[in-house]
């Protein structure tokens, strides 16, 4: 069975290789091949899942070692995979949602002449993401980690002719690299501490390492997670990443890749468990991002950017949960999966809307679309209900658990975190309702595109609709499924689980959650449902304006890193030219000047030279005599 693991990755990798190297002759059929291979991977995943279910809970992990990747004295990195319940969950999410989005892309990218390459990149992404979650050591995980970064770079910048897309892609990669730095340093510390970076031995030996080391590793891993999962302070790339085609936003920047940070933290559970300080920082980052993303999501008029803010916020939930320790890990993953369904569905819905509206993204130019795009409306609506935590839908179950766990953290921290998650839930309800109302309700505020064509909203082709429907089903059912089918027990052998002792009862938390949700929805309805939405955005309060600019984070980055960096590099170029090179050239000039002086002695008269020879001889004799005298 374990030999299938490599195939899991191999299928999409093969697809990527064939599609990218195959050339134009695959233009006609390439997308089918890519989709097929993603589906093959999904089927293999299902087979492995079925196999795993058949085993006892403690014996479910599979290992496969292909070969030794980097063999150096004292340092061994294997090309080896580990498939346990946590990885399995991800495999199914990635291949499942991935396959659906492949199908969706067939329709969405139909008119793009570079569709073959798009599918190649998508397959590359799936392969890299699978490598990330299947790796059995941190270095191989790093391989996958950067692989998804590359795929993300390529896909964000897929429409490279747009400078904004190219810039966004570059920004995403570079910000991610800052996070990657954290991951590499974490691996280095692990290596010097444990002498290995394979999951099993490292996690087993955490008990013997000093807390300081573990805290350092934990914080570095958190830095990595911040980069990949767009958490404060490395969140700035996610909004810009929406320049990529919508299926990309759905798959990579909502459902899978951005959750890799959560995976990393949950995977390193033992390290964090032994480093409470690091855990505290994790929860703080999660809490801050949760509010940050939510606030940004409220202010954006671009439907995809609003959803991106929401993604950030939801991942904040997950990170927060992961920071809570054993009481939260399972729920972080649970929310991750349900979020994967409903956020992917929301993005696909947004893509469908854009598809029908001449690629317009400004929600202020939508309105009243529910009649024109009924299926999109329904699927989007179900996703909406899921995300705001409407009772019974998937988001309700997963988010509720996180809020509960946050309170269960205990002490002042618990109260603060719990309150933050509740506020987050309220804001989530508010901004999602805002999106919903501005897009599907109210009067039409449609505008002609730059070519003067009025939009003709229509339902999308079947290849796009079917994935949306399937994801909507997932958004509705996943939560209940997990809640009642023993998801906790499924993951427990990997992540560990502990029941928290909440200072307030579960029922009270649930009630509060529903209450703040209703509050948020109501507020949004008052603002956007009862009043007409202006086509041109009002100036808004200071907070709104700041939120529109991503709470000035970009401005800060620009002022400090971009401008500062530009000045630094310019001055270094100057230093290199004038100072480092200048010293050398100065020496050369000095020698030249000196020889210019000395040259005057060379007057060309043989007699002058003879005098110097003669004098030299005299000096030599004198020297000889002196030497003898001494």
């Amino acid at each position, binding site marked *: 069975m374990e030999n299938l693991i490599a195939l899991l990755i191999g299928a999409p990798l093969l697809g990527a290789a064939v599609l990218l190297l195959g050339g134009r002759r695959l233009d006609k059929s390439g997308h089918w091949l890519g989709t097929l291979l993603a589906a093959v991977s999904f089927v293999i995943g299902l087979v492995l899942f079925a196999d795993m279910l058949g085993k006892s809970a403690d014996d479910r992990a599979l290992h496969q070692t292909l070969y030794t990747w980097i063999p150096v004295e004292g340092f061994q990195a294997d090309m080896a995979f580990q498939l346990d319940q946590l990885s399995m969950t991800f495999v199914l999410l990635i291949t499942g949602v991935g396959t659906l989005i492949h199908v969706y892309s067939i329709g969405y990218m139909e008119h793009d002449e570079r569709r073959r390459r798009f599918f190649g990149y998508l397959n590359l992404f799936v392969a890299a993401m699978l490598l990330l979650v299947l790796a059995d050591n941190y270095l191989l995980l790093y391989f996958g980690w950067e692989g998804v970064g590359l795929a993300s770079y390529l896909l964000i910048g897929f429409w490279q002719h747009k400078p904004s897309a190219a810039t966004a892609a570059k920004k995403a990669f570079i910000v991610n690299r800052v996070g990657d730095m954290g991951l590499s340093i974490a691996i280095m510390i692990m290596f010097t501490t444990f002498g290995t970076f394979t999951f099993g031995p490292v996690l087993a030996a955490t008990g013997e390492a000093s807390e300081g080391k573990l805290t350092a590793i934990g914080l570095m891993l958190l830095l990595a997670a911040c980069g990949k999962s767009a958490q404060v302070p490395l969140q700035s790339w996610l909004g810009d990443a929406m320049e990529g085609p919508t299926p990309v936003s759905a798959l990579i920047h909502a459902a899978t890749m951005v959750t890799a940070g959560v995976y990393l933290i949950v995977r390193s559970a033992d390290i964090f468990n032994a480093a409470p300080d690091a855990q505290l920082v994790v929860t703080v980052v999660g809490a801050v991002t949760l509010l940050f993303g939510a606030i940004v999501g409220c202010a954006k008029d671009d439907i995809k950017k609003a959803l991106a803010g929401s993604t950030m916020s939801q991942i904040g939930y997950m990170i927060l949960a992961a920071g809570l320790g054993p009481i939260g890990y399972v729920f972080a993953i649970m929310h991750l999966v349900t979020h994967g369904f409903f956020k992917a569905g929301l993005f696909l819905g947004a893509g469908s809307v854009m598809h029908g509206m001449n690629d317009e993204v400004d929600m202020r130019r939508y309105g009243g679309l529910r009649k024109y795009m009924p299926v999109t409306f329904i699927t989007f609506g179900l996703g909406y209900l899921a995300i705001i935590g409407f009772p019974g839908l998937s988001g309700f179950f997963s988010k509720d658990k996180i809020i509960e766990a946050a309170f269960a953290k205990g002490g002042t921290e618990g109260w603060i975190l719990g309150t933050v998650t509740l506020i987050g839930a309220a804001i989530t309800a508010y901004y999602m309702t805002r999106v919903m109302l501005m897009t599907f309700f109210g009067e039409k505020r449609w505008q002609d595109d730059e070519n003067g064509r009025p939009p003709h909203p229509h339902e999308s082709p079947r290849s796009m609709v079917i994935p949306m429907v399937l994801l909507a089903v997932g958004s509705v059912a996943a939560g209940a499924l997990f809640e009642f089918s023993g998801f906790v027990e499924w993951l427990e052998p990997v992540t560990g689980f502990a029941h928290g002792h909440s200072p307030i009862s579960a029922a009270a938390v649930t009630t509060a959650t529903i209450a703040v949700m209703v509050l948020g929805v109501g507020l949004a309805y008052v603002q956007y449902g009862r009043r007409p939405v202006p086509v041109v955005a009002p100036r808004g309060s200071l907070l709104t304006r700041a939120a529109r600019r991503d709470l000035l984070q970009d401005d800060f980055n620009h002022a400090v890193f971009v401008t500062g960096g530009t000045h630094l590099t310019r001055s270094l170029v100057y230093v290199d030219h004038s100072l480092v090179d200048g010293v050398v050239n100065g020496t050369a000039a000095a020698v030249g000047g000196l020889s210019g002086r000395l040259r005057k002695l060379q007057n060309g008269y043989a*007699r002058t*030279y003879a005098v110097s020879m003669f004098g030299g001889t005299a000096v030599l004799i004198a020297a000889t005599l002196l030497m003898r005298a001494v």
Partner: protein
Amino acid sequence: MNPVNYLYLAALLFTIGAVGVLIRRNAIVVFMCVELMLNACNLAFVTFSRMHGNLDGQVIAFFTMVVAAAEVVVGLAIIVSVFRARHSASVDDASLMKL
């Protein structure tokens, strides 16, 4: 008298010859001064030969003469051809070595 005086004489002649090389501009005279220096050396050689009681010094002096003869032949030929080309036997006129 001590035969060392021959050596002092040789040294004196050599120095006079060297100074002559330095201050005269006529190539022929310069050349003569070189010959004077060579002769001074020969005198020293011969004196040393007598001093040490063997003939090697004289042999060297003999060789010096032969080489001096060869040198004179070539040197004068050069002077003549330079004179033909430049109508001057002044060593200062041939100052092409300067940059």
